């Protein structure tokens, strides 16, 4: 039967990408615990205000959509400082206990992405106890009255965000030094701030879902079972079935205490009430080198046969202007047809056009390259590719029936993506401004899902028969003459075109900090606050 989730027990940011629900600005705050008992009281106070995943409505017995939201998460150290019992702590995932910094080799955080160069808050984290990041609080604000008020969206929503921030500072102050807000988040002109601010990128006074390179983010975010407001968004976002249909992914891929794609419960700490309806969050601050990106795109765009915009689309697998997938719109002519369809489609139709596709007709990567962002992050059913004697060189085809289900190699590597861009690009000829994205990824198993994708699919290409080519946008590229990064843009194996090789790809995105967090359910938050976690 259809699964019903206890939405009032699940934190809102797990189910909702707030940006998509009318919250254009956010502030992420990190706290250090100085006194366990007072910190627990603080968590209890916070919990009363935490935004759940419930469906909003104005009717009787319904929860109204909040003007601003509050969500909370803890690092391993944080849970320890809150005196969660040792036996419970021992059952958290080892990579969660170790933290992001310790996993640098797996994540490829080297060179300009190395922890020694991260924002001070992240450099100092896990070095000395009083600088450890223990608690994460996220505040997202909407813009009541906009656009009728005739004012700027960001300005309107920042007023609400300031109220939320003041509320948080007040309750921190009420807890007599039990917790302190950590500084050291780098803002504009190198200023060190007590928070990380984020906001959507605006175009002509309207909010977009774009990041600073100009791509629309988060279109293909996974859909899983039990989320009532995602039921019409399954096609292209769930899992591919044999009969060409789509189904939501198993809840347990994203929420602990639920059956996952292997038909079992993901490993989680005891007691069940501590982990059920909770999940792990990967927080990463990613700086975007806009000048390097523009220069590289210009340099190759002038040489690439399809032109600059098609090349930009090849980096990601989607066109920059409207997110049209290359699989459906592989060249200018097909793009024009797609645009016409998109213009007249209703909301559901647009969603189908943007999301409902497979790589079945592009197994050789001629339309969407193997190293393009969306193909690496979510290969759909395209990984079981084979070539047989007699096939044209460079030709790959789907090994039908090799696995139980077409998504067998992909369904356990999916990751929910949340977050927003930060900063403004004031000068596109410079890399060193304050601009990038804060990405928060959610999954049940950090190692199996996020870390695997990061290590094997973003920074390595073997699963895509692409050797050690990295994902074009996020890969930890090097222009070092000994090991220069490259990526191949494939062409139809039977055609006359030659593949285009992107040579010496520079580092386009750099890690500036982050860590692994546990996002508890509301029940678990209440129990942590009362000191009632009992694993026996």
């Amino acid at each position, binding site marked *: *039967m259809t*699964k*019903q989730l*206890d939405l*009032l*027990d699940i934190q809102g940011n797990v189910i909702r990408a707030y940006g998509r629900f009318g919250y254009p600005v956010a502030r992420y705050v990190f706290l250090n615990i100085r006194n366990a008992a007072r910190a627990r009281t603080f968590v209890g106070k916070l919990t*009363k205000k*935490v*935004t*759940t995943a*419930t469906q909003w409505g104005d009717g009787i*017995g*319904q*929860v109204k959509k909040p003007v601003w939201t509050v969500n909370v998460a803890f690092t391993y150290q944080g849970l320890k400082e809150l005196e969660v019992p040792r036996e419970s702590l021992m059952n958290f995932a080892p990579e969660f206990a170790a933290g992001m910094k310790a996993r640098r080799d797996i994540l490829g955080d080297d060179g300009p992405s190395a922890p020694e160069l991260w924002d001070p808050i992240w450099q100092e984290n896990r070095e000395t106890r009083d600088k450890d990041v223990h608690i994460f609080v996220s505040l997202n604000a909407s813009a009541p009255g906009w656009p009728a008020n005739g004012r700027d969206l960001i300005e309107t929503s920042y007023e609400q965000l300031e109220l939320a921030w003041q509320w948080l500072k007040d309750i921190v102050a009420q807890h007599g030094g039990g917790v302190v807000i950590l500084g050291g988040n780098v803002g504009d002109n190198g200023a060190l701030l007590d928070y990380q601010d984020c906001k959507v990128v605006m175009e002509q006074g309207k909010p977009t879902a774009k990041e600073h390179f100009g791509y629309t983010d988060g279109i293909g975010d996974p859909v899983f079972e039990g989320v009532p407001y995602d039921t019409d968004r399954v096609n292209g976002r769930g899992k591919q079935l*044999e009969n060409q249909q789509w189904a939501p992914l198993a809840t347990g891929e994203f929420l602990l205490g639920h*059956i996952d794609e292997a*038909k*079992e*419960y993901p490993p989680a700490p005891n007691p069940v009430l501590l982990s*059920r309806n909770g999940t792990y969050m990967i927080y990463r601050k990613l700086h975007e080198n806009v000048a390097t990106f523009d220069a590289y795109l210009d340099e190759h765009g002038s040489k690439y046969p399809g032109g600059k915009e098609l090349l930009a689309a090849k980096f990601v697998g989607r066109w920059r202007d409207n997110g049209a997938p290359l699989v459906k719109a592989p060249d200018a002519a097909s793009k024009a047809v797609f645009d016409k369809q998109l213009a007249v489609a209703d909301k559901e139709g647009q969603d189908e056009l943007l999301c409902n596709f497979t790589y079945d007709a592009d197994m050789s990567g001629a339309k969407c390259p193997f190293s393009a962002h969306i193909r690496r992050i979510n290969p759909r059913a395209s990984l079981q590719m084979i070539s047989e004697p007699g096939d044209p060189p460079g030709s790959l085809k789907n090994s039908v029936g090799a696995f*139980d289900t077409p998504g067998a190699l992909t369904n356990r590597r999916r990751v929910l993506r949340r977050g927003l861009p930060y900063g403004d690009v004031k000068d596109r000829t410079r890399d060193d401004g304050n601009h990038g994205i804060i990405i928060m990824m959610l999954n049940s198993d950090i190692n199996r899902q996020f870390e695997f994708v990061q290590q094997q699919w973003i920074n390595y290409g073997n699963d895509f028969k692409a050797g050690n080519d990295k994902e074009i946008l996020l890969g930890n590229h090097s222009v070092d003459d000994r090991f220069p990064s490259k990526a191949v843009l494939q062409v139809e194996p039977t055609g006359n075109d030659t593949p285009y090789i992107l040579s010496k790809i520079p580092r386009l995105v750099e890690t500036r900090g982050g860590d692994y967090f546990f996002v508890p359910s*509301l*029940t678990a938050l*209440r*129990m942590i606050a*009362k000191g*009632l976690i009992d694993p026996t």
Partner: protein
Amino acid sequence: MGSNISGSAYALTILSPIRNGVVPGQEIAFADKVRDTLQNWNLLINSPMTKVPQTYLCRYFVLDDVYTQSLPGGSALDTLIDFLPIVPDSLRKWAMPTEDHLQSRYLVFSCNFHGGPNGDVDGYLQGMWNAISSNIREVWGYCYGFEKVHDAASFATYMKQCQLTASLFFVGSNDEPLPEQLKALYLKQEFARFAVANQGLDAATVRANYLAFSQRVKPTDLNGPTWVPGQYRL
């Protein structure tokens, strides 16, 4: 006599479906509120249930859903299908057991009490209502059908409608009425202390001390001195 009666001990199991809904003015589901209320009892000096006469042991919890043990089936048909690769995947999957879920969340109350040889459930439940009706309202107030409860008799009727006649016995209690058991525990503890204090003394002194001990602990007086209900530490 049901399987939930053993001697004079009665194993009472109650499953009350909790209504779907949100506590007005709070972003908390009824079932989560019930759990929160029950968990707050942990912060009290002792559980309100200690005020309920004749309670041996009891446990409350909120049942969110059933837990799936495993899915790959163990039937003869599955095994046969697994050995025959000729059987298509669709048929193999069709033979897999389905995943079940509860229609509602439940408040589970599992309790062992002294019910006498005939298992006096009504007497126990009415005693429970008379002792802690405000706590009962707080905990059961969000359950289906509880609006019909307004006194001890209607509470007993409601609870029996929610009763599962399973024999969930806790270990560690005998048949005797609760005051007898509490007195016995008290005496056992006091006597152990007496034995330690009198080790190695001559017989006459021990005898004199025992007389004084016996007068102090009053072995046949159930009213005291004795343990209080809910006492679990020395």
